[in-house]
């Protein structure tokens, strides 16, 4: 499978009468994007705002972050089974608007977390302080159930992102990257001396507000399967996950998954990147056993030498991570796992809720309990009402000078477990 990714660099976003992209500037018609967002009758109103790197702006509570893309050649469309009709994606030509994001915000549940600071110490920890953000705050109709509200905001964000992506359809990309994968047989013939390596991605799938969708299917209901690593670049996997801001994978991270992109860099050089294996993180223990059994079985059937395993979330997924690691290693396949840590505010507690000697190669995305002071910023997009009530906050959260004392947990993407962040440890 061969996918050409065209990058169109966005240098600025401005509201204007007509939506278009010209000389790297994205002009957005508020009226047009509002109409796109309000296509769903469950959304009563929506407000749009622009947040730029370096501005004294705090966005909260953030739900999802999405990179606009458009499929210009090849099968299917962006977000297959969700926005585009179901068709296998990952080949042909796709354009992405780089340097910007659509950020959805809205209070779906009363304890919702997710802060993006565009300046100050908080900005150093969230990757989305570096993007030009078109923020949409969606208000639902009265008496809506949380799961209906979540779904409405999830889809509204995708619709707006696809609308913006379409503006690039006729443009010439500033840069093009080619990602090409082999079939199993081709790979063996082409790289007979290279180790065979795959990526095992664990998808959050515990229930309401903790969901991920694969071609529109709730990942809770899948058994582990294999994908071409280019499929994610067309939005084959999307986030429905509202909880655990620091270590959830927003849709932006699925589209730009750094494990996939870094493995492509090594493909044909230091190893043969065989495929992308996806599995889930259900709450029912028998499901965990089935999924980890299947993941290990696939690794063996594919004659892999090694895998990189990434998880999403804390606690329950730690068990899936260790089960995957143990069972894959037992098949004679080496593993490197990527996680983050809840090691307490002093960093001295046990980092994971599960462990095993087989997990002897671990990459960390940082300690989510680490305390940080976020200074008062001039403007808030969304609401601060719940900041004192979000993960990692405590009664001392809001200090006299207006600054916030919080744990890294509250910052969107701070300890991301695919490495889409700034932290690690040696």
């Amino acid at each position, binding site marked *: 499978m061969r996918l050409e990714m065209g990058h169109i660099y966005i240098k600025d976003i401005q509201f204007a009468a007509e939506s278009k992209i010209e000389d790297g500037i994205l002009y957005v018609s508020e009226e047009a994007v509002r109409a796109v967002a309000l296509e769903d009758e469950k959304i009563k109103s929506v407000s749009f705002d622009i947040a730029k790197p370096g501005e004294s702006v705090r966005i909260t509570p953030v739900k999802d972050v999405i990179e606009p893309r458009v499929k210009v050649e090849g099968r299917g469309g962006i977000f297959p089974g969700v926005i585009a009709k179901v068709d296998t994606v990952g080949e042909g030509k796709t354009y992405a608007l780089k340097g910007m994001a659509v950020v959805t915000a809205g209070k779906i549940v*009363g304890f919702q977390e997710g802060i993006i600071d565009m300046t100050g110490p908080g900005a150093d920890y969230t990757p989305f302080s570096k993007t030009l953000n078109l923020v949409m705050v969606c208000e639902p109709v009265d008496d809506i159930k949380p799961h209906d509200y979540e779904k409405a905001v999830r889809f509204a964000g995708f619709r707006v992102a696809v609308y913006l992506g379409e503006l690039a359809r006729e443009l010439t990309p500033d840069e093009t990257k080619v990602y090409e994968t082999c079939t199993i047989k081709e790979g063996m013939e082409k790289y007979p001396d290279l180790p065979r390596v795959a990526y095992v991605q664990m998808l959050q799938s515990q229930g309401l507000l*903790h969901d991920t969708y694969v071609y529109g299917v709730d990942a809770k209901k899948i058994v582990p399967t294999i994908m071409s690593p280019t499929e994610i670049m067309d939005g084959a996997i999307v986030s429905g996950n509202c909880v655990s801001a620091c270590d959830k994978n927003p849709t932006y991270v699925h589209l730009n998954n750094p494990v996939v992109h870094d493995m492509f860099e090594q493909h044909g050089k230091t190893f043969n990147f065989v495929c992308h294996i996806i599995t889930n993180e259900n*709450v*029912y223990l*028998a*499901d965990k056993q089935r999924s980890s059994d299947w993941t290990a079985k696939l690794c063996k059937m594919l004659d892999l030498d090694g895998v990189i395993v990434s998880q999403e979330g804390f606690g*329950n997924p730690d068990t899936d991570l260790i089960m995957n690691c143990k069972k894959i290693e037992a098949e004679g396949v080496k593993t490197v796992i990527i996680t983050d840590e809840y090691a307490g505010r002093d960093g001295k507690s046990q980092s994971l809720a599960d462990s095993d000697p087989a997990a002897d190669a671990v990459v960390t995305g940082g300690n989510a309990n680490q305390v940080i002071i976020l200074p008062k910023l001039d403007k808030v997009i969304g609401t601060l009402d719940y900041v004192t*009530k979000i993960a990692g906050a405590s*009664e001392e959260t809001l200090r006299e000078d207006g600054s916030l004392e919080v744990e890294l947990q509250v910052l969107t993407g701070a300890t991301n477990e695919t490495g889409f962040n700034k932290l690690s440890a040696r």
Partner: protein
Amino acid sequence: MGSRDYMVITNNPLVLDRLKETRHVVYRDISYEEILREVRDRIHEGHTLLSHPLSGSVKPNETPYKSIMISEGKGEVDEASLKLIENAIQACRKFIFKSDLYEAPVYDDFQIIDLTLLESGMASADAG
């Protein structure tokens, strides 16, 4: 596994209200960590853990509610269940206690989330 083969240990009044007619629900008006201890005691009696004690990304000591599925029947003490529940009890202590800081409507949201996480486990159990 059918709906008669497991019981639910919970401190979530919404779970009791919604499921008491159709499931074996053991309701206790105790803390999150005490629910984990109650489950641990039952594992020592020979029940098997069926759903993950740290289900949900809402952390212990943030949400006050926890519902856990265990087997109705008893057998030998299940070592894997014991390890999971002991690790979960330890994990509780890493989080600053703030379950009592929220405004009233937020507790409704916590209850709904806990119920839906449980339902996601029950859906798997009932299908088997």
